[in-house]
């Protein structure tokens, strides 16, 4: 049987990769994909804990995380389309109207 801490370690590493991608990519679509990566890391953690603690609630929580991720992707990509229509760019460092 694979120990629980291996799954938690995998989840941490994937989450950290997602954080790095979100903080350092220039393209806003890849930033959204990094958010999906972080949510997937959380789901791995929740489902492995649900299996090892023999409780179904972790999977229910992962279910809701997936539903919210779908909503977040739809809204986020609509914002990207609105941004692209107004500024004709998807690079976060070229959108600087709010800089003082």
């Amino acid at each position, binding site marked *: 049987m694979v120990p629980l801490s*291996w799954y938690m370690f995998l989840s941490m590493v994937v989450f*950290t990769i997602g954080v790095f*991608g979100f903080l350092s990519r220039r393209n806003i679509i890849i930033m959204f994909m990094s958010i999906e990566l972080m949510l997937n890391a959380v789901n791995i953690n929740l*489902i492995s804990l649900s299996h090892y603690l023999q409780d179904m609630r972790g*999977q229910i929580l992962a279910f809701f995380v997936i539903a919210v991720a779908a909503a977040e*992707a739809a809204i986020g990509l609509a914002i990207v389309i*609105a941004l692209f229509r107004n500024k004709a760019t998807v690079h976060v460092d070229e959108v600087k109207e709010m800089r003082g």
Partner: protein
Amino acid sequence: MIQELFFAYFAFAIVVLSILVITRRNPVHSVLWMLLLFFHIASLYLFLNAEFMAAIQIIVYAGGILVLFLFVVLLMNIREEVRINKFIGAWPTGFTFAAGLLVVIIMSIKSFIVAPPGIYSIDLIKQETHTKALGKLLYTEFLYPFEVASLILLVAIIGAIVLAKRRLKH
């Protein structure tokens, strides 16, 4: 032994694929690597006796969200994207922050205390089937959050249409 080998393969593949997703220059390649990543994560869920979650992972993520990403990626100018630098100037700050976060989370795992096991043992789930056990819990104890999730999806549909539609000229 064979379980550890399988887990080692999937963990290695998931980590390598997530690094590929965030470092590819061409966004279409990123989306396609992410498709492979989601299939690997779904097979990890199969190890954990969560067949329904594996199916949902493939249907919702690979079938829904990634197609949405692919459509939006087609909007932008790939030729310009391939030419310019893919990271922002302050990427070492992001790397330092992410590495520090990893160290802090790894240190926090030592204080993790395993709770007493619940009633959903593997035998019970096998006897009742996974989808039925999940559905029973979802439609009784978690009915109210389930309705709230449907409201969130409705708001997402309306919000996406309002944000993405063209302004009417007047």
